[in-house]
């Protein structure tokens, strides 16, 4: 099992690197989907099948698809490529890379230095999640619905003008 774990982790990392280095938005999005799927496998292997399913269905299946729709609908993919070709070059990754490296070192120190033992993997299924969610975190569920509602209303309101045909400016 650990081999699968390591393998999925490696796939996730590699595809994430590819996401941030692509010029074409659609390509990047597709790589991002791969990364998410790999992370879902990791979830499953750690004994959390519920979130694994959620990762695939909602994250990769809804949110990323939304991204893809928007990018494709407004033809942002091709126009981005030209622009990016101009600017995405050279030593632009030096500073962020350096910063990230330092942070990595710091976090690695914080995580690896205290010695901890491995833990036994046991499954925590949807049933347990559900019980805990609706008993202890009942209020948080309501708040989450607020957030979703606000996102819905906001997106509808802001995006009202920009229908499929951008030139048309009706109400």
């Amino acid at each position: 099992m650990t081999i699968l774990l390591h393998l999925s982790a490696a796939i996730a990392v590699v595809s994430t690197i590819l996401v941030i280095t692509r010029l074409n938005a659609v390509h990047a999005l597709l790589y991002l989907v791969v990364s998410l799927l790999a992370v879902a496998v990791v979830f499953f292997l750690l004994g959390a099948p519920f979130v694994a399913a959620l990762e695939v269905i909602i994250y990769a299946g809804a949110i990323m698809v939304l991204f893809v729709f928007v990018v494709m609908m407004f033809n942002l993919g091709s126009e981005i490529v030209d622009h990016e070709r101009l600017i995405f070059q050279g030593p632009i990754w030096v500073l962020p890379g350096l910063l990230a490296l330092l942070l990595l070192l710091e976090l690695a120190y914080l995580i690896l230095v205290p010695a901890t033992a491995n833990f036994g993997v046991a499954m925590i299924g949807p049933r347990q999640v559900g019980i805990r969610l609706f008993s202890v975190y009942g209020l948080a569920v309501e708040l989450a619905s607020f957030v979703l509602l606000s996102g819905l209303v906001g997106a509808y309101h802001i995006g009202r003008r920009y229908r499929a045909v951008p030139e048309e400016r009706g109400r």
Partner: protein
Amino acid sequence: MTGTASLQFGLMLATVLFLLGLIGVLMRRNLIFVLMSLEIMFNAAGLAFVVAGQRWQQADGQIMFLFILAVTGSEVALGLALALAARHHFGTLDTDLISRMRG
């Protein structure tokens, strides 16, 4: 679904993914890419939660991930709508050029 796993491994994975997302936010100028990198960061954070929850054998980690999902969802929706509005208003999606709040 059986066997042992290392907490440190999980957290390191989450860290690496998070930092990759951070590099993306700092490096890319296009608004869509920035949003994408943010998603990567959110996902990495969720991974950390789940790993910790599994370590302590509590469902709270998964629940936290659920909430992250809810937030991310609405954030993406709004973010994309704003990106479109920005493109319409400024004619570009380059974040370096959309800097009217300078000074």
